[in-house]
């Protein structure tokens, strides 16, 4: 499934994350280094699970640090989730 940086940024804004923080994001830099706090990241993870109908395990959560990480994860798992149907 194709997912773009813009798709995920829109989802962040829907999840209530500050628009200015989202606009300025560098996809390769850890989100916690760019203004995300300890509640933004789980809120975004929950929004990703809900939007793409995937489950992010506890171990996977700890490895999802950057927007690029989320892109890779969603592309891989959303495809398999859809393929299984």
């Amino acid at each position: 499934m194709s997912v773009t940086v813009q798709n995920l940024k829109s989802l962040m804004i829907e999840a209530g994350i500050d628009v200015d923080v989202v606009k300025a994001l560098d996809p390769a830099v850890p989100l916690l280094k760019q203004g995300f706090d300890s509640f933004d990241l789980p809120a975004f993870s929950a929004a990703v699970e809900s939007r793409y109908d995937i489950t992010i395990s506890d171990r996977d959560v700890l490895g999802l640090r950057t927007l690029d990480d989320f892109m890779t994860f969603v592309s891989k798992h959303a495809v398999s989730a859809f393929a299984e149907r």
Partner: protein
Amino acid sequence: MSRNSACDLLRSNLDRHPGKAACLFENVVVDYAGLWADSCRFGNLLRQHGVKRGERVLIVLPDTPAFPFAFFGSLLIGACPVPVNTSLTVAEYSFLLEDSGAVVRICPSGHAVLAAEAPGLRVTLLCDAFGPPGLSGMAPALEPCMVGDDDVALILYSSGSTGQPKGVPHRPAALSAGAGLWGGPVLGLSDTDVVLSSSKLFFSYGLIANLLLPMGVGATTILHPGRPTPHDLFALIARHRPTVFFGVPTTYGQMIQSYDATARIDSLRLFFSCGEALPEIIYSEWRALTGIELLDGIGSTEVLNSPISNRPRRSLAGSCGEVVPGYDIRIVDDDGADVSDGAVGHLLVRGDSVCRGYWNRQDATAKTMLADGWLRTGDVVERRDGRYFHHGRSDDMMKIGGMWVPPNRVEETLRGHRAVVDCAVVARSSGGLDRIYAFVILRTDSVGTSALGQELRRHVLGRLPNYMCPLKIEFVTELPRTTTGKVQRFKLRGGQ
């Protein structure tokens, strides 16, 4: 016997190593002689303002040297420091001022507490990072006021599952219990250690970890105002080279997510986690990443210590540890009968540092402080082979990011939105940590879209601290209830 808590904690350091660093703050080193002198100056300033033995001093300060000066200065004159959260509303500060009966408030200029009103308040002292103007002109010595063993030396405030926060008074000896029973004998802290805590001094965990414990063993503490991000913490570690770090599971989770090759943590020999149950995944990931074990424990504002704690080189994933000598532990069923090993029950703790009764709250005291000195902590635990395992809470309180969240506060806020008829919130695990999930019944003219879900989250974020905002909002047509109408939260917690 009469004693003074500030003398208990500081005097031996003053005699042994007056020039040793007590506090590191940015580029400033406050040695033990300086800490003692400025604490005496603060005490003399309070006395000059007419503050007397037993009177309460509300401290609303960030973690800067002014905090320990005000804290120990209050103790030295026999007054009672009341450290409180620096991020509350004016109404909350008014309650705390009135409930504690504080005669003094100490805060930075422009702080919200300045707009609060209380009948007994006589003095306001505005502080920068090193204290109020005029502090340096005060005498750097004083005759400490000796107080009785049963006097109130310190009051901390604890969130209640309903209603207002409860004042938790502590006797003088309790202030030394963290170092004397736990930090020294169990964790092995000594005067060679440098301590950093992500938890702020106004929290009981932060006060113990970042002040009472290091001062009690003659170590050095690192002060950092504000709420540090994981990158701030890595920078503080690189700059000040602590040997011991105290955090909450959420902090460790964030540090794992932020850890990279630039992180310099080789000065650290011990990591401790408290404030909420430590998920096994964070325990194992932390060890894999750093090579150092992460010790978990159960602490309580009412105990002013960690009566159950893991020990270095004996920690076990998923266990909050073993009994700390000096405390008695029981696990009982709903009828108060002791349960056998392997059975889950309510945690009771007894020990000299345990608070004997809430401040002006006989109702809450009767429910929590039982006969023969036992404290009902509200934790549900299990004991196996001498180790304890945390199974949650017996009340509705949620622990999110190490901070208490009463569910009714979130629910009342959600009900304040025009689209919401009723709701219930519970804690559910996400990423191994508890997060808030809300179940909302909408008005018939509202539709449960994801956009409305985000609008409700923003509604809460605009009115409550962000840790109280639900991670997820699910729209439902009814809530599970008992025959008497009480929401069955366990049913909402169960489903994923």
